[in-house]
Structures are given as C-alpha cells and as structure tokens.
C-alpha cells in the first residue's frame, strides 16, 4: 500500500507543499517522513485513524509546532514559521479540532481577535465596523445568532460556526479545517459544504480533515491518507472506492459497520413523562426498555443534551416525572443517577469526561472509586488490573494504562470515556454523541460495543446527529426540535426524510401531528 504514491511534486498550481516532514514528541513519532501538496482552489481531504498525525500535521502548517526535519514550501518559496502569526500573514488560517475560543468575549471579538478593526486615526477599536462585518459573516454562514452574544453562552456547534467565520475573516488563501463537521448535524454539514465550495470558487484552497467518508466523497477532489504518522497515499476521490479508502486508513478490512443483531427487548427500565425544564425543554415523554437502543436526534440546540443531563442529575427538572424500573425517582446528582443505574457519556469529553493530566487507568476507575476501596482505602493493584482489562477490551492504543490521557488522540480518549462507564454496573446508559471525532476503525469498535451492551440488557439512549448511525443502530427514534419531541418512530419503518422533516419543521405541534399521521406506531405507547 505504502508505495502507492500518486500525484507528487510540482504539479502546476500547487500553492502549498510539504516535503519529508518528521515530528517527534517524547515517546511518539507523530509524523514520519510525510509529504503533501495542495493545489490552487482545491479541496483536499485528509483522512486517517485517530492518532494518525493529522492534527499534528496541521499544526506544523500553521506554525504552532516546528517540524523536526523537512521543509514547507508556499508559492514555490521555502518558508519557516517561528510563530502562528507568520503563517497567518502568508494567508494560512485554521479551524482547530478543539475549539479555541474566548468564552468571556463577544462573538465579534472572537472572530476578529488578533486582527481587530480599528479606526483610522485614533487606532481605537471600531466596534461598529466589527459587529457589522461579523454579522455579515454570520449571515453568510446562515447562523441565527447575534455577533454580540457572549461566546461562552453558545453551544459547541455554534462556536464551530464562529470558528469558521473567524477563518473567513482573515481572507486566507489556505484554509484548514480539522474535523469541522464532528459537532454538526447533517443539515449543518450541508451548509458547511456550501460555504466551503463557495470559498473554492473564490480561489481559496482548503484542507479538509474528517472521519466521515461522505464529507470527503461529497467535497474533496483528492484525498490523502495517513496511518501511524506515515503517508499511505493520495488519490483523486473518484478513483478510489470506499472500501479501499477504509483499508488504507485502518490497514484491514471492516466487514460491516452496523452488524444487525437480533436482541430481545425486555422490561421497561425507564419512563419519562412530560418532563419539563423551563427554558430548555418541555413535555418530553418517552420510554426505554432493556436491550433497546433509543436514538435521540434532531438539530444542534434541540435540547437533547439538556434532557439527558437532567436525567443524569446534572440539572433538576421543573415538572414531569421519571420512573426507573417502575419506581418514581428524583435524581439529585450524577452520583445518585449512577446508584439508580443510569450512566452517561458526556458530550464534551475533554471538559466533562476526562481528567486530562491523569493517567488512563485513574480516569477509567474514577466513577467506581468506591468499588476499589475499602473504607476509603484504595486497593491499587485491583484497580490497575480492572482498568487494564477494560482498556484492553476497548483496544485503547497506548503503551500502558499509566500513559496520560492528554497525550492520546481524540478517538482513544473517547474509548477511555466509554471504559469509564463500563467500570460500573448500570441499567441505563446515555451516550451523547459517542462517535464524535472518532475514526472509522474506532467507530466500528464503538458500534460493536454499543451492540454488546444492548445484548447484555442495558437500555441505551443514543444521542446522535449522524443519520446512518441513527438508522443503523437504533430500535426506535425520538426526534426533538427546540426543546419538544416532534416525532417518535420505529426505526424499521422510518426514513431519513421523515426524520429531517420532524427536526426542521417550523411548528412543533404541527409536525408532531404530521408525523403521527404518517407513522403507524406511537412510540410511547408501543412498550405496553
């Protein structure tokens, strides 16, 4: 495979070229003699497993890291960046994988930080111009929020949109997007495709990193694949099949993404009735049974996370009721939820899921410290053994469980979070976007795990914005829009159009009626 180096060297119109780049972190060879070229006006996909070195590669182009060996050529001239600013000056802009925003500042300031608009003579910050310009950029991206909003109050997806606006604002010639669609729904991704194509038409070149095959298929002209820090190949997108691409990335074949399993659905474990949290969601009702996978979908900001966090005790509900195994409960805090058998894989794994500076093992056992201690006294041997077992089971890629989570790639970090949930005995598991930013191989692994869990009799609530995932994994689908449930469907007879319609219609009640008319089974009633 590795000899399949296609288009190399000085193709006319190549505006960025990297040659023989190597980058070594203590203990890891993140990049090993890779090369890459980008043509004028091209969208170039970059793919690879978690930890393949994609983000590191990007940081080298943007001047955040200096390569250990190798050279960067822009417009035929060799360059060396001492800081990110120098790269910016040469027209390189990046949207980083982990959103890097200023939560306390306004959206407009976030967009223009570092290249603020100032008035001509007094050099004071020109607020009016900045807000005007920012609003224009946001409108261009079809964002329905104001440039005056505080960044920290926005959801992750909206922050992502601001990041894109930020890259646009610098008038860059080379725009790099590191997994921009990870936090976006299908609908929003389509918007992003449109914007990206607009950019290309204007002559901008784009490097587009994604774990979603459809992103690359839909957008890119060429695709480069990295594996374990090495360059595997570069192909025109039309000339490579999906299967071959997967093989290039993973190094082996993945037979089926969504193995259909026949799981016996058992007793009802959770019943949510008319749950309302003022200002966030209203009258949410659904049920969940043993071995069932219930997908919760909708557009970003629909309130899915809020519902699940309320069920997990992060916030309190204002009215409605929750029954776990038929008993009505109140849920004070996550500890309480865990005791009731409800576990949660949170949406933001870095902030909510992991203690980043800690070792893998300590992270895995954090939810079950009690189980590994007698009268507060930790039994570290038993703890390490258990952590090791879980890490092995989920195939976390690291040399030992004493590796810091900080140094893991996104997908491997996600596996650690999954391992955390598995360290406790639970009945209900909430998975909030479990495959966000995870490579195909790991995705398949996680789908496998989800299947296993269902088989073992867990009731699973899966929040997902990816249509194939929703349709391929779940038994039933609940669609939300603006804090209300707009549809409940049996997956067997649901279609993509139905779901999209329910998640986007203007009036929620109208939609509910509409969808109810189309569907035969009523989701909440089907359990009895």
């Amino acid at each position: 495979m590795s000899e399949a180096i296609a288009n190399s060297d000085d193709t006319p119109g190549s505006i960025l070229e990297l040659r023989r780049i190597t980058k070594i972190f203590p203990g890891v060879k993140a990049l090993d003699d890779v090369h890459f070229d980008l043509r004028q006006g091209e969208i170039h996909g970059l793919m690879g497993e978690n930890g393949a070195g994609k983000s590191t590669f990007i940081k080298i182009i943007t001047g955040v890291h200096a390569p250990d060996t190798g050279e960067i050529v822009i417009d035929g001239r060799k360059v060396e960046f001492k800081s990110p600013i120098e790269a910016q000056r040469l027209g390189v802009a990046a949207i980083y994988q982990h959103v890097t925003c200023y939560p306390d500042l306004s959206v407009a300031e976030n967009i223009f930080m570092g290249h603020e608009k100032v008035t001509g003579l007094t050099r004071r910050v020109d607020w009016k111009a900045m807000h005007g310009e920012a609003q224009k950029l946001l409108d261009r991206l079809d964002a329905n929020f104001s440039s005056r909003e505080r960044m920290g109050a926005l959801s992750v997806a909206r922050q992502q949109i601001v990041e894109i606006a930020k890259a646009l604002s610098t008038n860059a010639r080379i725009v790099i997007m590191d997994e921009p669609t990870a936090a976006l729904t299908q609908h929003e991704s389509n918007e992003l495709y449109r914007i990206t194509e607009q950019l290309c038409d204007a002559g901008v070149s784009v490097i587009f990193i994604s774990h979603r095959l459809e992103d690359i298929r839909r957008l890119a002209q060429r695709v480069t694949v990295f594996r374990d820090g090495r360059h595997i190949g570069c192909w025109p997108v039309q000339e490579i099949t999906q299967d071959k691409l997967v093989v290039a990335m993973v190094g082996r074949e993945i037979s089926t993404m969504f193995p259909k399993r026949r799981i016996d659905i058992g007793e009802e474990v959770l019943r949510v009735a008319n749950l309302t949290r003022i200002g966030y969601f209203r009258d949410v009702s659904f049920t969940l049974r043993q071995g069932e996978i219930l997908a919760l979908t909708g557009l970003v900001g629909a309130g899915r996370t809020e519902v699940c966090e309320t069920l997990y005790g992060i916030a309190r509900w204002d009215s409605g009721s929750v029954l776990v195994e038929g008993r009505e409960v109140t849920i004070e805090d996550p500890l309480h939820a865990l005791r009731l058998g409800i576990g949660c894989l949170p949406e933001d794994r870095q902030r909510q899921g992991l203690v980043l500076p800690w070792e893998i093992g300590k992270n895995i056992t954090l939810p079950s410290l009690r189980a590994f201690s007698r009268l507060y006294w930790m039994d570290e041997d038993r703890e390490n053994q258990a952590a090791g077992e879980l890490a092995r089971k989920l195939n976390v890629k690291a040399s030992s469980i004493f590796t810091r989570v900080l140094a893991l790639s996104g997908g491997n970090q996600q596996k650690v979070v999954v391992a955390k949930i598995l360290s406790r005995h639970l009945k209900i598991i909430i998975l909030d976007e479990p495959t966000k930013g995870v490579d195909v191989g790991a995705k398949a692994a996680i789908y496998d795990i989800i299947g296993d869990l269902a088989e073992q009799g867990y009731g699973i609530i899966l929040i997902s914005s990816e249509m194939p995932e929703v349709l391929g994994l779940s038994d039933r689908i609940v669609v939300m829009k603006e804090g209300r449930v707009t549809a409940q469907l049996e997956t067997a007879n649901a279609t993509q159009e139905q779901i999209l319609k329910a998640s986007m219609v203007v009036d929620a009640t109208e939609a509910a009626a509409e969808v109810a008319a189309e569907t035969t089974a009523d989701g909440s009633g089907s359990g009895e």
Partner: protein
Amino acid sequence: MADARTPEIRIQAVRNWSWKTFFFQWEWLLVVVLLLVVAVNTYLSPFFLALSTFIHTPATFLDKAFIVFPMMMVIILGKIDISVGSTVALSAVMMAVAYNAGLPMPAAIVLCLLVGVLAGAFNGVLIARFKELSFVIVTISTMMIYRGIAYIILGDQASGRFPGWFSLFGWGTVMGVPFMLVAFVVCAVIFGLLLHKTSFGRAIYGMGHNAIACRYSGVNTDRILMTVFTLNGLMAAVTAIFLTSRMGSTRPNVALGYELEVIAMVVLGGVSTNGGIGRIGGPILAVFIVGFLGYGMGLANLQAPIVLVVIGLLLIVSVLALRVRFTIRRKKPVV
C-alpha cells in the same frame, strides 16, 4: 495489507519505574535547599549545629505547620482559604473564655476543635452552595467575621490562666522529643495516607484538575469540598491549641497573617495553585526549610528585614530552578 510495523499494541497494566523519573522530582530540590540552609546556618552561628536544634527548635515554628496539611488539600482543589488565621483566633478565644466560664479544660479543648470545625464547615457550605461566589471573597469575609466574633467576645481582654497540664501541649516532651513534633509527625502520616492512599485523596486531585469531569463521574464534589474546608478549620483549631498552650493565654489578635505564611509554605512545597498537583513531602520539607532558615538567621541575630528579603528570594529562586528544569525537559505544547 496488514502493516508489519503496527502490531496490535497490548496495553500494559504495570508501571515502569525508572531512576530518572524518581530523581527528577521537586522534593529533591527541596532536600538540597534544606541541606543548604543547614550549611549556611552552621556557618552563621556556632549554636546552630546541635542535636537540640533539630529536636527542640521545631516547636518554635511548628504551630502553624499543622494547617499546612489541610491547606495543601484546599490548594490542590484549586482553592485558597484566607480565613484560617482568624479561625485560629476564634477557636482559641472560645476555648479560653469557655474555660474561664467554668467549663472543664478537656471540654474546652473539645469546644475549641468544634469551633474550628464549624468555622471551616461554614466556609465549605458557602463555597459549595453558592458556586457563583468566589472562594476568595468568601474566605476574606469570613476572615473578618471570625476575628470579628473573637473581638466581640473578648474585646480588649486577654484570657488565660489555664491549668498547668495544658502547657504540656506546647512545651512538653515525649521521651525527649517535643510533643508538638510528635503530633506533627502523626498528622503528616495521617494526611499523607489520606491524600495518597484513599479514594478521598484521589477525588481531591481529580477535582483539582477538572471538577466538572469528577461531577460527571459521580464524585460527590460538594461533599469533598466541604470536608476539605472543614478539615482546614479543624487543623486551625489544633494550631490554636498548641499556640495557646505556648503562650499561656490568648487574645483576639493572635495568629495574624498566618494564612499567607501557610500558603507560602504549601506553594514552596511544590503544590500548584492551579490545582491537582503536589505531594505531601514537599510542604513538609518547606515547613522545615522556612522554619530553620528563620531560626538560624535569628540565631545569627540578623535583623528582621534581612530575613524577609532572604525568605522572599528563597521562594522565587527555588521556583525559578523548577522552571529551568522544566524547560530543559520539554517544550510546552500549544493548543
């Protein structure tokens, strides 16, 4: 197709132990500094290098050192408690007043501890329940309140006249070793185990790095916060007992400024105010470094301003040494 160079990595569950990481620790630097302090002191004063210096003089600076342990926990949590000096004053005053009002001394001591616990718990409850209030402002205001209460109770009076045995806390010895030193060692062991060997300690470190993730993981973060602040109050009361015993009486303005001295020792001990980082050995060494330094320079009759300057320099220079070590070891990653 399968790449020969990527065998399936089996993740290990055994820790690699290396001499290099063992000696690359902050505590070794502190040991060096401590030896340096001893050497300089020996040079400065002929009285310094004696067995009694190492066994008896710790009693002169150990009183506030009892707060170092819980303060270390507070700082690992990423917080700071500025009210401890006032808590010492309040619990000491309560003890003295209660005793002079007729309570038997053992009961007065229990009361002292109880007051400390209550004062600490009040801090803890406020900080845990009112998340939007900064711990700095909470403990600054309780700093005023606790000492204020001490003033209200005792006004311009001093209170004392304790039974003779009470002075044994501060002045007594156990087989030739001052009782205070023994108590300090016992506390060091207890807190060391608590911090490094229990699930409670584990949770403290976790919360210091990422309290949100700990909450999502089912750690009872509020309870840990309250417990740690309560421990801080309790140990402030222990300090109050030793201090009062050494002074034979007490008044509302004792232990002024103890909080900053304690924080300085904790921080010198390698505990980061960003939270999550620090081991028990560091602050213990720091207590003896600062204590012996002050004591030795006093023996040489150096004036207080010089001592101030030297302690300030020590704080900065030793931390600079740590920084230089880090820049040698790794370049800081961005993003």
